[in-house]
């Protein structure tokens, strides 16, 4: 995982509320067996016209949005399915952070595990950000993970929450599996005290 420390970028505004994972990446794009190629399906339902050509009105298709790394999303982002294809698709397009007032639990966790930072802001800040980009689409904000702050163009700083463990992993680019593997002796000890009560392998037919 690529470390995340600070990020300065212009914003891609997507004010829709309750954007669910079926919107982020529709199921028909989930037949892949790797993590590549998902960017193409990002917001596909909105991004393409029925004939498959890009919808020029959709924000992601505007030339000036290319290369921006922060998605300013509407309230309650990422509800729905557990598909990790959602953060993969967002990152595939180039996003490294998403700002919203609220994130669905599974999406939030999936994002953190991939180095995509979900930034939770209060409703007033959220409204203000949308007002700012509406007035001046090219404003830049800075996300500083060590101090957990989001800096607006006028210098105002708002803090955002993140648990210490995830922050540490993001700053260092650490994979959480490494942490679990380090604790293998404890897992083995637990298993000695709690032997499995069944073995699904009896289901295997020879």
């Amino acid at each position, binding site marked *: 995982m690529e470390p995340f420390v600070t990020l300065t970028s212009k914003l891609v505004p997507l*004010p*829709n*509320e*309750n954007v*669910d994972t*079926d*919107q982020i990446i*529709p*199921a*028909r794009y*989930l*037949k*892949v*067996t*790797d*993590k590549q190629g998902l960017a193409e399906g990002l917001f596909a*339902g909105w991004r393409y016209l*029925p004939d498959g050509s890009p919808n020029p009105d959709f924000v992601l298709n505007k030339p000036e949005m290319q290369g921006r790394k922060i998605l300013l999303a*509407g*309230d*309650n982002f990422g*509800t*729905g*399915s*557990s*598909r*990790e*294809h959602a953060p993969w698709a967002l990152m595939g397009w180039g996003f490294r952070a998403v700002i919203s007032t*609220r994130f*669905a*639990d*599974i999406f939030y*966790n*999936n994002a953190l*595990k*991939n180095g995509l930072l979900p930034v939770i802001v209060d409703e007033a800040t959220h409204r203000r950000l949308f007002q700012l980009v509406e007035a001046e689409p090219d404003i830049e904000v800075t996300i500083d993970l060590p101090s957990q702050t989001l800096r607006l163009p006028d210098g105002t700083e708002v803090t955002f929450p993140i*648990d*210490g*463990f995830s922050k540490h992993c993001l700053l260092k680019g650490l994979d*959480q*599996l490494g*942490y*679990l*593997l380090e*604790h*293998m002796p*404890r*897992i083995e000890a*637990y*298993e000695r005290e*709690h032997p*499995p*009560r*069944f*073995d*699904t*392998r009896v*289901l*295997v037919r020879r």
Partner: protein
Amino acid sequence: MAMTRPRTLFEKIWDDHVVYEEPGSPAILYIDLHLIHEVTSPQAFQGLREKGLRVRRPGQTLATMDHSIPTVGRDFSLMDAMAVKQIQTLEENARAFGIPLFNMFDDRQGIVHVIGPELGLTQPGMTIVCGDSHTSTHGAFGALAFGIGTSEVEHVLATQTILQRKPKTFEVRFEGARPEGVTAKDMILALIATIGTGGGVGHVFEYRGDAVRGLNMEERLTLCNMSIEGGARAGLIAPDDVTFEYLADKPFAPKGKDWDEALKRWRQLPTDPGATYDKSVTIDVSRLEPMITWGTNPAQAIPITGRIPDPDKEPDPRRRRAMERALAYMGFQPGQQLLGHPIDVVFIGSCTNARITDLRMAAQIFKGRKVAPGVRVLVVPGSQQVKRQAEAEGLDRIFKDAGAEWREPGCSMCIAMNGDRLEPGQYAVSTSNRNFEGRQGPGGRTILASPLTAAAAAVTGKITDPRPLLA
């Protein structure tokens, strides 16, 4: 002797499964059962290969195919090349890592959340995960069950554990006598309409109250299934005699002395008197009607005789915009009553409502009636076992005689990955769990409902109150 603090059902299961918790870090939680399917697992196995890791507990793992397989028949020629590659990848991974797999030709195959309970693998007090958000279904047995992402699938494969922050608890009380024609599906839609899709974020639901006790096991599965639609990753129901009776003859249920011991353990699980929850809500079931959704998230639901709310009366501007967008997508008007609105497709299936009792409910309405002209009806059983049972009871004949399609088990039009999908603009009454834009096919419009309400729409061709049709 020191008194132990009263604990909830959730806390007891959580405490039993914490392997280790470092201050400031999430807990390492042990997983008893890991269910796998073709869509969310390939990248996890790829991760294991890259790191040279093996599957730690193949005997606590079970794989099935359900999401992308055809339900018209079982033939590779019915699938596109990517779907074929995906199921072949699962086949290879299961073989290489020693995991039992029900492939699409297996007579035990089914939707992952249908087969766990029917095998008796889902048991009280367990922790269960799957790379699928409707894993919450298994909570009906008093198991802590929740969906995980693919990175976490890899973590569980490699270590049989997962890193978790302890969620908060949310008591959901369903009280009062359930009226005729009101099902578990209507109860859960009513809850989600009350608390919103984000209402349970960060929490685990525990469903309680006399109306929950009065549900049979399959109705409880329906209730817990949609916990995630209310924002909660898991929903639990304390095990009781209904649970034990359902489990007793299942293949993986403990037998003899082991059963007696298990019962003793399981009877300790229900929430202690005096234990407290972080949040609580009560729903009066006696006042409920069959529920239907009018919008593009499951919280946008109304009683079947009700009217679509008017966005102009919504004080919160963001909720107002969301309502307006949903109305535009669905082609509905504020204040409109949906009763009598014509529909194109009826889908009876999914891990929410494709068990035998769901099919019996639907058959009750189809019996002696015909599918309305121009309406397409898919009945997709949840598993091969459900299919066999339905056929033994003659339910398949009732559906086919009425003019419905009787399919092979799978997720089918719930997620529309396998070719079963709506055409743009079509209206479908579906027993599945998500009415998101495009969920059942690009441009498709989904109205969520119970099997009774779906069947009533099938035979009348429009949105219909099922209650008068219940002889």
